[in-house]
């Protein structure tokens, strides 16, 4: 390989389901193309967190062509062990009452209404960490290079700004003040013919590329914040819950009709590996309560009588937080000239593009599907990389991804605009509605207080410890407050510095009367801070490679 080690044909940024699907598909149809996937986490799957209910079709399609006998492998049997056979959709009213409203969903489906898509029987309930690990191994087996522990901080474009020529890795070995230590390594430049951005939600490179290449979104990107815990329970509790069941719950503690609170989202209860149950809370990041934290909602949820019986007395063995891109169809970044999702030789996939279907509240299948399409696009345009993004977009438009994204077109925006009470019924009209102008999540913050705040104290330290997050302490902070004056003169007086509350890992603290990212090494890479700071005053960049959480069963 000699001096060419810093050049690859296809560089995939991010070893998640989307990026790995690209690698697997590409190596299957064009084994001779050299494919390199780089990932910032120290091991495959460590930065992947999801519910997760997986609609299996795209994965099956991918694997059937790549590894025909995949079903017989131990990994397949482990990762895809649990098929959903029982689908509960609950509505919680207060701390004790619960109603199963699955029948409403069924009716909606009968009448062809949008949210009738929210059904999961026949899907798999999976650990996305394990899924990713498995897909990574398959990609390697097919000859792709999958390199973990390398964080990318920038994308380099040619003069026309239509094509990317390279990416730049993060500098390593700087101390807190930015001085070079003896082990300093300057961020390497990796040249590539194709760049696939599959970084997940709110991707660092994706957003830099959107800016540098002047891509546009019709509507601002909206996000949700998900927090999840995996709880070791007794065998009796696990059996009572059942390993083929998934529960989605709306209402308390994030939405109560009339009296509030009024937030979008809900709780989940999924089976994990034997004697483990996963509970999670997903809350639209347009919440308006300045003292709110999704973890408080999770604690309230866990103490609801319906949930508590399954997990009471259990121990949290793993925990984590992550954002979900919910802007949908209108928030997909596109080249304004050609509508391509990406530009030239750069393609944007999965959560980085925002391919989450909010009617199904699922995006994993679309991420994999987009990976397949990206691979096909590269294979077809291998001699004309400048056409890759257009080809990729064509393929996406013909795929199930586009069908789903169109059908869910206005759902989340309707709710953002009108609130869950009016928005949910309005969303029935789905695609008929015009595109709304909605505000960015961070603009939603008000001085209002979360009604159920005082119910339970949340132990963030333990939560962070269970995410097993780790960064080299002596490095430059990867979190920046752009203008400390805003914190002091505007945010703290009005909202009492919400970042201190909502950061799931307790990164922010007031030190000598100044709000600071005091514990950057606690960071879970969820990036909620850069989207929810009421004054858009925080920026997240990638820390040294291998830093971050160590999810294994999330």
């Amino acid at each position, binding site marked *: 390989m000699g001096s060419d*080690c810093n050049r690859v044909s296809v560089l995939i940024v991010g070893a998640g389901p989307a990026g790995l699907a690209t690698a697997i598909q590409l190596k299957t149809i064009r084994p001779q193309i050299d494919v390199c996937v780089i990932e910032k986490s120290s091991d495959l799957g460590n930065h992947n967190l999801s519910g997760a209910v997986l609609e299996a079709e795209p994965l099956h399609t991918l694997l059937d062509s790549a590894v025909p006998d995949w079903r017989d492998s131990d990994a397949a049997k482990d990762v895809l062990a649990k098929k959903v056979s029982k689908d509960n959709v609950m509505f919680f009213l207060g701390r004790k009452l619960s109603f199963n409203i699955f029948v409403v969903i069924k009716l909606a489906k009968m009448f062809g209404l949008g949210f009738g898509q929210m059904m999961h029987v026949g899907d798999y309930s999976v650990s996305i960490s394990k899924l990713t690990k498995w897909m990574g191994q398959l990609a390697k087996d097919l000859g792709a*290079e999958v*390199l973990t522990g390398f964080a990318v901080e920038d994308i380099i474009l040619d003069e026309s700004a239509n094509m990317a020529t390279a990416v730049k890795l993060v500098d390593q*070995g700087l101390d807190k003040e930015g001085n070079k230590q003896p*082990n300093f390594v300057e961020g390497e430049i990796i040249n590539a013919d194709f760049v696939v951005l599959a970084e997940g939600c709110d991707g660092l490179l994706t957003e830099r590329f959107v800016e540098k290449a002047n891509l546009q979104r019709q509507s601002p990107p909206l996000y949700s914040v998900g927090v999840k815990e995996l709880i070791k329970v007794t065998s009796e509790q696990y059996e009572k819950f059942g390993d083929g069941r998934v529960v989605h719950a709306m209402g308390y503690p994030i939405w109560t009709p009339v009296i509030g609170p009024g937030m979008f989202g809900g709780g989940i209860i999924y089976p994990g*590996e034997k004697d483990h149950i996963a509970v999670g809370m997903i809350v639209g990041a347009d919440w308006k309560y300045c003292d709110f934290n999704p973890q408080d909602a999770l604690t309230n949820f866990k103490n609801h009588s319906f949930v508590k019986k399954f997990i009471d007395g259990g*121990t949290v063995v*793993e925990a984590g937080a992550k954002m979900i891109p919910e802007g949908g169809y209108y928030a997909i970044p596109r080249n304004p000239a050609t509508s391509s999702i990406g530009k030239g030789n750069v393609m944007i996939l999965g959560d980085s593009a925002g391919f989450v279907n909010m009617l199904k509240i699922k995006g994993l299948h679309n991420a994999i599907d987009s990976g397949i399409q990206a691979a096909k696009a590269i294979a077809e345009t291998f001699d004309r990389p400048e056409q890759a993004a257009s080809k990729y977009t064509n393929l996406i438009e013909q795929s199930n991804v586009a069908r789903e994204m169109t059908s869910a077109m206005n759902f989340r925006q309707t709710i953002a605009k009108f609130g869950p009470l009016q928005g949910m019924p309005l969303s029935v009209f789905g695609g008929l509605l015009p595109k709304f102008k909605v505000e960015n999540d961070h603009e939603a913050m008000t001085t209002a207080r979360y009604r159920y705040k005082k119910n339970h104290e949340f132990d963030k330290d333990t939560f962070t410890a269970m995410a097993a997050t780790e960064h080299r302490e002596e490095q430059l902070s990867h979190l920046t407050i752009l203008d400390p004056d805003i914190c002091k003169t505007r945010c703290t007086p009005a909202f009492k510095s919400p970042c201190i509350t909502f950061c799931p890992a307790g990164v922010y603290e007031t030190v000598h009367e100044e709000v600071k990212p005091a514990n950057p090494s606690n960071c879970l890479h969820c990036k909620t801070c850069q989207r929810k700071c009421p004054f858009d005053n925080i920026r997240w960049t990638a820390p040294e490679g291998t830093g971050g959480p160590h999810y*294994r069963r999330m």
Partner: protein
Amino acid sequence: MSNYIVLVKQVPDVTQITDNAFDPETGTLIRTRLASVINELDAQALAFANQMKRDSDDKNGEVICLTMGPPMAEEVLRYGLARCADRVVLLTDRALGGADTVATANPLAFAIRKIVKEIFKNNSDYYVVCGMQSVDGDTAQVPPQITEELGLACIAYVTGAEFRNGRFEFTRIISGGSQVVAAKELPAVITVAKFEYPLFATFVATRRANKAEIIRWASDDIKATHIGVKGSKTSVIRVFPPGKSTRKCRQVTDAKSLAELLVESFKSGNGGTDDTPQAQAARYTLPGRRAENFDRSFEATKKEIEDYKILADTVKKLGISKVSRIDDAVKEKILAAAGEHFHKRALEDMLNGLQLTEPGFSGEVWVVAEHGGGAVHPATFELIGKARELADSLETKVGVCLAGFNAEPMAKDLIAAGADGIYIIDDKLLGEFDPTAHRKAVADAISTYWPQIVLYAATPQGRMLAPMVSYRVGCGLTADCTGLDIRDSSRRGQIAILLQTRPALGGNVMATICTKNSKSQMATARPGVMKKLPPDNSRKGKIIKHKVRLCEADTGLEIIKTELGTGDVNFNAEVIISGGKGMQNRDNYERLVGLLCEGLSKKLDTQVEKGASRAAVEQGFAERAHQVGQTGTSVAPKLYIALGISGAIQHMIGVANTETIIAVNSDPNAPILKQCDYYIVGSVEDTVPQLVAALTTEN
């Protein structure tokens, strides 16, 4: 130009133990369920070698990583290649599996010889660089044993190197201080105790590493003399989960309650450790001394004790009172009566075992004394206490091997502590501790008198000396024992053998080990674990002068400078307050530890001493003399307060005998919280001032 051979080892990641890594039945940690990583200290050793190469402006020197392990161990070699290694060698063969430290060091040394011959073309200008110890075995034995096999000088516990006048001067940790030394000649072995800046992988090197060829050698390629299970001199007979800590492990949420508990624990003197001793087993008695012929209540395992009890009952019922009466006919009868319990083969083994009454080993029980500045190290007295107990059971004498210069005045204290004979090796060249000279002296005495047991303190010095001596005299050695008992394993024909129990895998499991294929059973024991006897000045003992011929060539190191900690550290204080890495910087350490020291000494009217974890000392927060723990000083105050100390096993060993341990740590997962009596989860910066305020306002 120097070449470097860096020894690396793949170990289970004991820092990330998930709940599903434990066997639900036995509670034992299952190694295969843990991720595999490079041993952290080996990663530091690699960076250290790279730094040496850079500092000496050496363009041509080659860095070679060597490991021994299963095929998957090549991952750690690729780790090396992705950073700075030029070539890598994997020693892998089924025949090499199941090895103890001797059967690990031996093939590694033979592989080094092969590397020197074939790759370095017999150029002897090279360093073997390795981590001081691995996190799984934690023995620190392999590097000194390799040194012994290769006949090189060894510089252990190195923390820095400076290239001066064409050679390296190394700074290393010694008990209670530090020392600057140089190797008299190359090659030499360096064991690294700490190097702050492990290397980052680069993208380019990683891609190259993944495609690079690995040199693979099998057992036949190196022709080592001690390999695998057969070449090992110790065997593990039992692995079990560590006993539940007897500490209270109670969380306190506010500084005021903690202040009250502090004062209360100090005044009541009723510490965290449970006072009821764990089922104090009866003192071992030799089979010939037991009242009953069939009494086998000192077997190594519970199961064997029970089996022998059933056998004894059966035999009694049959009216047999003497072992010699058991012939084939009687055997049949016994089988008929107790056949449901035993297979025929097992029964025959048991009966054969019953015929045995003579111990498998003979000779005295020895302690190798450690001393400095004319005083005996406290750990030596503890070992003599233990040796006394073992020797009484075995009906033999306690000998102490004392190597030094003008050391005879110390003999009196050793005798008072329980020794019967002091074997003095007096030589000018033994004045300062030089492992090469000392190991020669001690090994010579041992192979002259052949004691059946030799104990060393698991101090930096003992952990260096013991592996070299044991390797030299061809005996097995178990490191860092916390339990030493005489037991029988009658079925295997072993009577009165030493069972050596020690923690492994970072304290997550306990292992009981016994010696095999050796003339003497050797162990290092953790300071602070064994109990010394009250000194008895009326005791009489013999002094035996042992002559060993030593010359200048027997010393491997040139000692340039020794810095012992300033004498004003008083670890006999009733209260010790230690700061760790969590103190962030020296200012915080001095301010906060100082504040609390002052507050507590006023409140309790006693002396309060400052301590520090090794990490804090390395970071420069405190002087080396204040270091508490395995490589520092073991302490036993009434009250030990650990501020921002994670509680690595090496630290906790050093405070095991404390009455009450109190921890303040912001990490709720810090191991120390499971090994202390009271703790607050919170930052040291917030908690300490609150605590001091609570102490001063109370009453």
